[in-house]
């Protein structure tokens, strides 16, 4: 790791100011991706602004049919929140299977969403749930937020403060973990809500998380695992690496989608 300068912020405003005043400032929440990246010397922020201790950005709130999750809420806190389990088991299950228990104690939803790793789990959930991402100065729809692999609509120095979504009628996430890293090799989140069915795929796409309109249409017409089986998954859109080629990943997307639909009931 290259040397860096550590700051701890006590409010979102302070965090943004600290990052602004740095040469190459970077927010750090749980740091479960950022620190390993820095250890490999693949990232070298001049300054780190720690937002983990900003209480106002933490917590799971369910009001009516609206769920709001503070950006620094850890995966473990999301997974274990009973009020969330009661209304959206899909995202609770997803959070409970990110990384391992120790990673879940540190890693946060805001960090995961901001990083938009193509194999991360949360982007699939937020996209499928039609969530909104709130930052220190605006609110962005998930459809507009996830731009591509490791790319989001965030501006430099913009800080995610929370994410929110409307409770779906049904939802589930099914993941095929990479046998080595345990990141998603194909993760499919299905959600059925007032605006119809949304299906988002992570881990498999060659340009990061994406929605699968074919499956959405099929499931709109017929909410069943069999309906997904008929959908076409384009191999040309799939990642190919040492763990799985595009054909295999395309197959996994279908299998995970079927399993997610079955799990959603």
């Amino acid at each position, binding site marked *: 790791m290259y040397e860096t300068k550590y700051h701890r912020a006590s409010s979102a405003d302070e965090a943004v100011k600290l990052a602004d005043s740095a040469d190459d400032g970077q927010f750090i929440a749980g740091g479960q991706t950022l*620190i390993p990246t820095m250890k490999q010397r693949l990232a070298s922020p001049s300054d780190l602004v*720690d937002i983990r201790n900003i209480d106002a950005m933490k917590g799971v709130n369910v009001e009516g049919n609206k769920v709001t999750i503070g950006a620094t809420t850890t995966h473990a806190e999301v997974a274990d929140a009973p009020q969330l389990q009661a209304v959206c088991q899909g995202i609770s299950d997803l959070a409970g299977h990110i990384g*391992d228990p120790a990673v879940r104690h540190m890693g946060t939803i805001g960090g995961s969403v901001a990083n938009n790793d193509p194999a991360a789990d949360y982007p699939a959930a937020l996209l499928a749930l039609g969530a909104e991402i709130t930052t220190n100065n605006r609110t962005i729809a998930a459809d507009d937020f996830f731009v591509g692999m490791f790319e989001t609509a965030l501006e430099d120095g913009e800080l995610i403060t929370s994410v929110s979504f409307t409770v779906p009628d049904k939802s589930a996430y099914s993941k095929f973990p990479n046998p080595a*890293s345990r990141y998603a090799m194909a993760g499919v989140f299905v959600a059925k809500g007032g605006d119809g069915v949304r299906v988002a795929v992570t881990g498999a796409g060659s340009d990061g998380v994406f929605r699968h309109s074919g499956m959405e249409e099929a499931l709109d017409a017929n909410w069943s695992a069999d309906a997904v089986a008929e959908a076409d998954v384009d191999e040309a859109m799939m990642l190919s690496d040492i763990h799985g080629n595009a054909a295999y990943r395309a197959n996994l997307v279908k299998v995970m989608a079927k399993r997610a639909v079955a799990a959603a009931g």
Partner: protein
Amino acid sequence: MTTVSMTVNGKEVSADVEDRTLLVDFIRENLKLTGTHVGCDTSQCGACVVHVDGKAVKACTMLANQATGSNVVTIEGLANGGDLHPVQAAFHEHHGLQCGFCTPGMIMTAVDMIERAKANGLKLDEATIRSELEGNICRCTGYHNIVRAIEAAAEQTA
């Protein structure tokens, strides 16, 4: 350089370190508590697991600075004087270790696992224990006796 200060195994500690110092390096190099180990660079082996504010975390994936003000427990702080923690005793009784290198992290993970299961009213069956050990690698035991040790300790502390 920054002054970091925290409570480790019940003692107030503080030192001036480079900002890039990892918690595990602070523990090993500054505090000379060498029971916490480093077995990989990618947060996967779990040899470095310690408890920060009551939760298992990977000390190789946390800056010492992030732990300032926290209460840290390492493997050295687990036993109560001469009395082993029930999980330590179970690893001994069930031969849940061979070379011992992954053992501190395994034990710290197991303690956290058992405490969370207890708090949530969950029973730790074999499949759950194996799944909960996702972040800890052992190359010696084939996990068989680690699972037996955790089952026994969970049973005992239930």
